[in-house]
């Protein structure tokens, strides 16, 4: 504090100085005299002026004396009299110089007061001894003064300089600023215990300033009263709403001060701790917010929300000159419109509505527009027109800063580009990087900083300091500084003061801006502008370091452009469609159906197409559709998953191909589905079916839908429309519970419901909806699988769906009576009710469906299945009985069927159902139907039954009604996706899933799935089907069905999932079969059959990889499970041609009791062990099969592998990687 003390001393000295000068009229102390004498050296002033001056002074003097009179009276009357006399004389004679001289002469012994009279006296005094003496004295003083001056240069200099310049007046303020100039560091002004206390008082928000003002007024009012306010200051801050601070010594003073004031809650007084006092007054450094180059937006008026750039800020800080893209009305002005334009009111009203588009100013155009007032040029691209200044086409305008939005501007690239001088043509858009940098700074937010990033401080005391971001707290970034002195300290910085620190060679990702999501290597760093070479197209790009982040992975480009994203199926023109295989900045790369690639800007894309319902026939007559895995029949034998089907073209994708980012297009005739192997059943071939027929069927379907709809009043025109649409629903859960509304639109999972109450349309999950039936009852849209409650009656229209209701197993039990809604056949109802279904007595189909749930119950049985598959169909009464049912079903009795089933099916239902004719059972004629139905979106699949229903009674009369509706709708119903949750689902499952690419196969797959996971409902459909009813299936990991979740990897890749193989091959049997058969195989022979078809399933076998011994797919264990979970190393493998589940491999055990022993074990009990990061790996399949490498990292299901001999990383599915144990 020594410094402080000295400062204070200096201050005091100043004050002394000041005071003496202020009072110099009265005082005549020694200090002053020298100055006075020195002034006497100045040339004598004119006598009159000095006289007048002197007289004034004497008056003062006199009064003083008068005041003192009483005191002096007694003691020295004489002297007093004399002096008074003298003075009187003086006064009398003052006006005249002569007289004064006389007086002076007389008053030789005048007291020292005389000296203070300065000049005039000196001038006279020369002749007197005393005067001489005084002069001498003053000379001494002068010398003294000079010496002192030397001693204390600063002080004197300042005082003198000020004095010379300004004379006496104005000293006080100068002194004040002088003090300020002292430059006392603010740290030394910190409050201490002697400072007055600061009290925080709550008040009514918004009244803070009023209170401060009233306090001030109160202070002045009471200043000279008996009880002055004893507070030294009071203040409020905008940022501290609801509080006023009062500074004083004692709490009582605060209360006294606040007494009688409104809007203040004086009862709550809080003492601000000394430490926090400065925080209250902390000045936020706002200056950086706005500076030339910053982007802002205009709040109001013609340019509302337009981007503007600050060119200059007025000194007062309240106005700024901004650069805008003018919005000028360029319609030629006739005289009439001119007048109209003057109608201000009108203009204001239409200011926003019809404001002209932003466009750069063009003088020539302007001339044409307004012939009366042509723009005047001010040279160099500057024009003045209509009182506005345009520079190089941009409008320059002074605007109040308060009318600008300055925060979170986030200008888009497009907007900035418009401001770029050179337009958009050159590579970087001609952007002035520095300007953008500036603006970017200002928008820098903490979000850009991630813990662990290295940063450098850009401004402030710690400039150039480096550190690591420790955490981000609100709008401050906490940085652990590296510097030795500060080591370990965590300092807070506003993000604007930091910039990210990178080294050349760092691999980074752009997290913001137009290059967002690009990755690359840093090749140059200039301040905060970093040049990187992108990984994707090896171009140099410049970005701000703040927009970068260290990144290990290589970007595959941004996924979306506008409303389109990678792998979207888009229509380019009337005859061209394509798939976006890569999205780049500003355009998408599209592969069209002829195999050509093109770069397309989003606006050139006509529309996005939906191919999810498209079906095509592959080279072997199997139907294929989106999501199926296929292989080329010739050529390069590429494999892939179908992204989209378009007429006879399929767009496929396989991430392992580099060309076109893995997307290729091929004629469907040249593809073969990898999942379905239904070749053995020519009868089932899709291609035998006339495509026209297919169409017909399809059409029929539609009709049916329509018809059914008609009957049921569903009013659906197309089969695919979500049945929920236009339904009155009640929201049964969530925040809107209890609201009634109409479904306006629906997607797989959600519905948009227009509420009756307030006409709002909200999006609600379907699971939260219940359909309100005509009679006031409700039916939950999604019955949960476990919702056994038969209670929910199915009703009215829904009932109409009934169809589906029936089908969906879920619904099961409840098929309520309601159902019957007119359309239904009586039978139906009957069916519906029978709760007994377990009993096997099942009534017609319905019950069957109803019963599905049970099956589940059994667990072991593929309940779903049965339920699904059969139920419906049987529905058809007779069919049913006939045992069309799956064997599995023991419950049913139906059991008998199983294998046979295929045929059974065929005849009974399937056919019938499909053909709309529906009518009767005769359908036998279309054996394929079932399959077909499957194709149609899977959804149909299960349904067959329903139609099939043709069965006797009910149907016959209303062939369509229940059946149809049910079949089709059923699917949709619950899930709304049209995908039948019912058994059919299973089929869909297959298709969705990896292996069982298609329906045919899928059935099989499904089965197996279900088998595997007994719990799973039949519905097991793919995730995307979302069959409400049977979600279970999807979730069970082991089910091949799992496939759907990892569609890319064909089942074969998962040796570990036992059932896998079955999936596809199963199809050997006809699809129908699937159901019943599914079980059988699934359990028993399943594996075997599977292999046959799925050759590749043990394809992974290779030497020197680590394997684990586990149970086989059929649940059996090798040697009774003795070696289960033991790991080993593959030593010898059977030839590939001999691969089967029983093929023996030599495995050297690596653990367990028989360590190092080599055993022979059937391959089915082996699973490759997944490598971990940094493990050696061997590629098990794919084009790199057999290659060795190191696993550098794992990204979900992909491994990043450094292959030996290649200096590039490969991204391979983890399932094709085995842990390599060799050298």
């Amino acid at each position: 504090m020594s410094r402080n003390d000295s400062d204070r001393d200096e201050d005091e000295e100043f004050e002394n100085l000041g005071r003496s000068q202020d009072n110099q009229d009265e005082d005549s102390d020694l200090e002053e005299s020298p100055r006075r004498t020195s002034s006497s050296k100045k040339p004598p002033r004119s006598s009159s002026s000095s006289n007048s001056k002197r007289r004034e002074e004497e008056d003062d003097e006199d009064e003083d004396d008068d005041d003192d009179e009483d005191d002096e009276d007694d003691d020295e009357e004489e002297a007093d009299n004399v002096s008074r006399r003298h003075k009187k004389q003086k006064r009398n004679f003052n006006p005249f110089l002569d007289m004064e001289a006389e007086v002076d002469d007389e008053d030789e012994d005048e007291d020292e007061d005389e000296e203070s009279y300065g000049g005039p006296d000196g001038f006279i005094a020369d002749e007197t001894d005393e005067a001489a003496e005084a002069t001498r004295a003053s000379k001494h003083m002068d010398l003294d003064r000079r010496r002192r001056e030397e001693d204390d240069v600063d002080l004197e200099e300042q005082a003198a300089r000020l004095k010379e310049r300004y004379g006496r007046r104005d000293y006080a303020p100068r002194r004040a600023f002088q003090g300020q100039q002292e430059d006392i560091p603010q740290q030394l002004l910190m409050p201490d215990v002697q400072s007055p206390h600061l009290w925080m008082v709550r008040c009514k928000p918004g009244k803070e300033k009023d209170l401060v003002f009233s306090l001030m007024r109160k202070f002045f009012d009471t200043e000279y009263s008996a009880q002055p306010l004893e507070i030294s200051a009071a203040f409020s801050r905008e940022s501290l709403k609801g509080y006023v601070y009062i500074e004083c010594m004692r709490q009582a003073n605060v209360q006294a001060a606040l007494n009688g004031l409104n809007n203040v809650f004086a009862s709550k007084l809080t003492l601000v701790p000394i430490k926090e006092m400065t925080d209250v007054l902390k000045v936020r450094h706002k200056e950086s917010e706005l500076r030339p180059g910053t982007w802002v937006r205009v709040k109001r008026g013609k340019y509302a929300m337009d981007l503007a750039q600050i060119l200059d800020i007025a000194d007062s800080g309240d106005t700024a000159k901004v650069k805008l893209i003018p919005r000028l009305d360029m319609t030629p002005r006739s005289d009439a419109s001119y007048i109209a334009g003057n109608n201000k009111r009108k203009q204001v009203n239409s200011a926003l509505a019809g404001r002209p588009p932003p466009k750069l100013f063009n003088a020539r155009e302007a001339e044409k527009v307004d012939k009366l007032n042509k723009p005047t040029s001010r040279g160099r691209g500057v024009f003045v027109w209509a009182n506005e200044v345009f520079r190089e086409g941009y409008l320059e305008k002074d605007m109040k800063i308060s009318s600008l939005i300055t925060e979170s501007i986030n200008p888009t690239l497009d907007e900035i580009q418009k401001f770029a001088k050179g337009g958009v043509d050159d590579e970087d858009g001609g952007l002035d990087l520095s300007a953008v940098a500036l603006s970017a700074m200002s928008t820098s937010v903490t979000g850009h900083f991630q813990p662990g990033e290295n940063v450098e401080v850009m401004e402030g005391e710690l400039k150039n300091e480096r550190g690591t971001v420790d955490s981000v707290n609100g709008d401050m970034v906490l940085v652990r500084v590296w510097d030795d002195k500060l080591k370990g300290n965590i300092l807070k910085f506003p993000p604007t003061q930091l910039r990210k620190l990178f080294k050349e060679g760092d691999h980074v990702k752009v997290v913001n801006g137009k290059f967002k999501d690009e990755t690359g290597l840093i090749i140059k760093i200039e301040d905060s502008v970093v040049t990187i070479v992108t990984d994707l197209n090896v171009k140099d790009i410049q970005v701000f370091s703040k927009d970068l982040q260290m990144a290990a992975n290589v970007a595959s480009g941004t996924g979306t452009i506008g409303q389109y994203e990678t792998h979207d199926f888009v229509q380019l023109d009337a005859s061209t469609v394509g798939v976006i295989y890569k999205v780049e900045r500003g355009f998408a790369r599209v592969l069209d159906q002829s195999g050509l690639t093109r770069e397309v800007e989003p606006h050139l894309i006509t529309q996005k197409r939906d191919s999810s319902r498209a079906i095509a026939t592959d080279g072997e007559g199997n139907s294929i559709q989106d999501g199926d895995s296929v292989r080329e029949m010739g050529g390069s034998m590429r494999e892939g998953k179908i992204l989209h089907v378009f007429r006879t073209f399929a767009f496929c994708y396989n991430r392992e191909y580099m060309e076109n980012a893995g997307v290729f297009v091929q004629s469907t005739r040249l593809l073969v589905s990898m999942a379905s192997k239904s070749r053995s059943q020519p009868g089932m071939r899709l291609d035998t079916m006339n495509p026209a027929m297919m169409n017909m069927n399809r059409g029929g379907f539609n009709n049916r839908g329509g018809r059914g709809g008609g009957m049921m009043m569903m009013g659906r025109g197309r089969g695919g429309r979500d049945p929920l649409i236009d339904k009155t629903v009640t929201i049964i859960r969530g925040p809107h519970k209890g609201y009634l509304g109409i479904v306006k639109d629906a997607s797989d999972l959600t519905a948009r419901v227009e509420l009756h109450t307030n006409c709002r349309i909200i999006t609600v999950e379907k699971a939260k909806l219940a359909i309100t039936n005509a009679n006031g009852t409700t039916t939950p849209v999604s019955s949960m699988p476990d919702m056994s409650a038969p209670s929910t009656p199915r009703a009215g229209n829904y009932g109409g769906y009934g169809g589906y209701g029936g089908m969906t197993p879920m619904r099961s039990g409840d098929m309520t009576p309601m159902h019957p809604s007119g359309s239904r056949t009586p039978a139906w109802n009957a069916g519906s009710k029978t709760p007994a279904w377990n009993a096997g007595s099942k009534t017609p189909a319905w019950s069957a469906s109803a019963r599905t749930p049970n099956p589940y119950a059994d667990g072991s049985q593929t309940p779903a299945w049965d339920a699904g598959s059969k139920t419906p169909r049987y529905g058809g009464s007779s069919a049913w009985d006939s045992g069309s049912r799956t064997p599995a079903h023991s419950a049913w009795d139906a059991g008998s069927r199983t294998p046979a089933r295929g045929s059974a099916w065929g005849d009974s239902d399937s056919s019938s159902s499909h053909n709309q004719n529906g009518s009767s059972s005769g359908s036998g004629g279309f054996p394929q139907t079932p399959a077909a139905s499957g194709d149609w979106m899977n959804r149909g699949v299960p349904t067959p039954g329903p139609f099939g229903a043709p069965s006797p009674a009910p149907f016959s009369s209303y062939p369509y009604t229940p059946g149809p509706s049910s079949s089709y709708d059923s699917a949709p119903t619950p899930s709304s996706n049209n995908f039948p949750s019912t058994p059919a689902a299973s089929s869909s499952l297959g298709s969705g899933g990896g292996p069982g690419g298609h329906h045919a196969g899928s059935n099989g797959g499904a089965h197996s799935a279900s088998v595997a996971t007994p719990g799973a409902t039949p519905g097991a459909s793919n995730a995307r089907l979302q069959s409400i009813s049977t979600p279970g299936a999807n979730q069970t990991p082991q089910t091949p069905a799992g496939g759907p979740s990892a569609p890319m990897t064909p089942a074969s890749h998962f040796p570990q999932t036992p059932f896998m193989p079955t999936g596809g091959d199963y199809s050997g049997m006809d699809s129908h079969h699937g159901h019943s058969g599914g079980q059988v195989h699934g359990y028993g022979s399943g594996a075997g059959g599977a292999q046959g078809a799925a050759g590749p399933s043990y394809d992974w076998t290779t030497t020197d990889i680590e394997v684990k011994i586990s149970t086989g797919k059929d649940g059996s264990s090798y040697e009774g499970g003795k070696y289960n979970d033991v790991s080993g190393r593959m030593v010898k493998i059977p030839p590939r041609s001999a691969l089967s589940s029983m093929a023996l491999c030599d495995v050297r055990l690596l653990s367990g009791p028989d360590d190092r022993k080599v055993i022979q074990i059937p391959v089915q009990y082996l699973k490759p062990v997944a490598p971990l990061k940094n493990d050696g790996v061997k590629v098990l399949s794919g084009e790199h099969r057999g290659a060795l490498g190191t696993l550098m990292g794992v990204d979900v299901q992909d491994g990043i592998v450094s292959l030996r001999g290649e200096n590039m990383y490969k991204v391979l599915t983890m399932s094709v990687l085995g842990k390599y144990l060799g050298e």
Partner: protein
Amino acid sequence: MSGIIPTDKKQLRACLLCSLIKKQDQFFKSGCDNCESLLEMKGHMDRVMDCTSQHYDGAIAVMQPSESWVAKWQRIDKFEKGIYAVQVQGRLPEDIEDDLESKGIKYRARDGSARD
């Protein structure tokens, strides 16, 4: 004395030199109570506009400048009693700043940019 207090809350401006808050017409009529000799705002509306700002934060009623820590911290402890801003946006025009400098006064901006 009370001429230094704003009469109402409209059109308040803060002196850029000393941060005193007054109404615009008060500045115009009587200048800044602390800085009149330096800024000479009295009677010159343009000077008033140049040397004061309507963008300021906080209001401090300084009753006893010499005793108040708040005033000291704000470096307004040698000024008149009155209402001051905690922070004033903007700076004096450069010519005025130069002028002040020639008078031996270093301008300390009140916008928070001054550093110690």
